[in-house]
């Protein structure tokens, strides 16, 4: 019995593990709640694109010693402008212009990060370093969690109305453009904060997978958001256990647990529907 308890508590014995746990809980609650709306607003591709496109900003910030969040924000801005500009080129669809811009920016970021003259450790930007979060990072993640949850609470009815039927939303006093913009801003903020813990490649997992999983087992938005946040938190903690005992990379372990949760929800939802 005591052995089981030790197995459960050992990863959190030192401050590094405890900070990592707090970080994944905060990011899990934020990403979990947000991911339900991301899934229903078909923003998964946008989330992935934005995450990848802000890499050069992160790399330049890391190289010059600026705060990562400032670099990430600048990277997001450049990416948004570039996508808008590429969208103006005739005969290129929106999908294609996004793909071209994102690939270019991501490639540029990788080139910078992995060039021989760059200091080692920039790989952490790609795969995250959840075990290296500082107290300042935690404060940032906590602030983000509060902001996103409050904003989602205030916007709940409007997000439902626009997602349900965008064309008749204006007659209900809801402007779809404003709601879309608010959701995109929340997505961008969540990306900026979460990318530091989970890395450029894996951040998408926490912004998409929990909502995708919760959608399979829940038929109302409010419980779905609760389930999604729970999935994200449990998968985050599970990933840290996996990382601790199997010696795997923390960010990748969390992403793997999130995907496992999605698959389990798929099987569970299928069984429930069949019975």
């Amino acid at each position, binding site marked *: 019995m005591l052995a089981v308890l030790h197995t459960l508590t050992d990863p959190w014995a030192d401050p590094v593990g405890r900070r990592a746990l707090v970080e994944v809980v905060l990011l899990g609650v934020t990403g979990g709640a947000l991911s339900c709306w991301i899934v229903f607003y078909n923003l998964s591709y946008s989330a992935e694109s934005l995450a990848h496109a802000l890499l050069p900003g992160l790399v330049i910030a890391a190289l010059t010693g600026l705060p990562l969040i400032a670099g990430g924000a600048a990277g997001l801005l450049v990416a948004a402008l570039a996508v808008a500009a590429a969208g103006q080129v005739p005969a290129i669809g929106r999908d294609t212009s996004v793909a071209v811009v994102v690939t270019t920016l991501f490639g540029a970021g990788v080139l910078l990060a992995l060039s021989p003259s760059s200091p080692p450790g920039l790989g952490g930007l790609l795969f995250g370093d959840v075990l290296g979060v500082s107290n300042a990072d935690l404060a940032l993640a906590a602030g983000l969690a509060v902001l996103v949850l409050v904003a989602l609470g205030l916007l709940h*009815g409007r997000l*439902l109305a626009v997602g*349900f039927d965008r*064309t008749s939303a204006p*007659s*209900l*006093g*809801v402007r779809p453009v404003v709601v879309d913009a608010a959701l995109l801003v929340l997505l961008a903020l969540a990306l900026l904060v979460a990318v530091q813990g989970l890395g450029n490649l894996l951040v998408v997992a926490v912004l998409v997978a929990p909502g995708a999983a919760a959608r399979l087992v829940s038929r*109302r938005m409010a419980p779905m958001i609760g389930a999604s946040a729970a999935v994200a938190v449990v998968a985050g903690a599970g990933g840290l256990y996996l990382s601790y005992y199997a010696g795997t990379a923390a960010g990748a372990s969390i992403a793997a647990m999130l995907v496992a949760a999605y698959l389990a929800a798929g099987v569970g939802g299928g069984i429930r529907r069949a019975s």
Partner: protein
Amino acid sequence: MHDPGTLTPLVRAQDLAAGYGATRVLTGVSFALLPGRRIGVLGPNGGGKTTLFRVLLGELAPMAGTVEVPVRFGVVPQTERSRLDFPVSALDVALMGSISTLPWWRRPGRGERRAALDALQAVGLRDLARATFGDLSGGQRQRVLVARALVQDAPVILLDEPFTGLDAPSAERLESLLAELTAQGRGVMIATHDVDQARAWDQVLCLNRRQIAFGAPAAVLDREVLEATYGGAIVELPGDHVHGVLPPHHH
């Protein structure tokens, strides 16, 4: 009953023209909707019914003429346009009508929930308040959207082809619900393909890229108007008052 002469119209259009870009797709629309009246908006696909509704809702600016509209419209769109996989109950959808009645920072509370349940009761769906919207039948979904308009307390309700795809009992049920709404003094405008159904309503507005006619169905709906509205030949079918309208190039 009020004397129609003393009533202020809920909607009034005068020489209205509308379109997209520089192209006018609808011209010369003049009509008034009085409280407690049902107007059937008739016309072929592309005849301008949707364009007229978009102008009334303020989504499209008139290119000419004037239009006076109430502060709030209730809109009952075709339910195929809403996402049937969306995780909302009938009650959630009815509650959406309370958004415009609340300040932006307030979420619907007990009072709004009661109003939404009352509205569902009024459309005969109180028992299905917890059902998923997408699981309801087409007629039930239409009635949930009517309930949403009731929660908005909209003086005018616009319905877009509400009878399409409804079986006879559902259509009758919706028809009597529309009669109740007008009895409460609301104005109702119904875009429809069904000429015979529109004969039962107070007025018809016939559109085919321009206004063909507006008035009481008995006075307005003759062969000439129907031909101009639908641009086709009217075929008299056996039996009284039964017309078939054949579009000119119907393949």
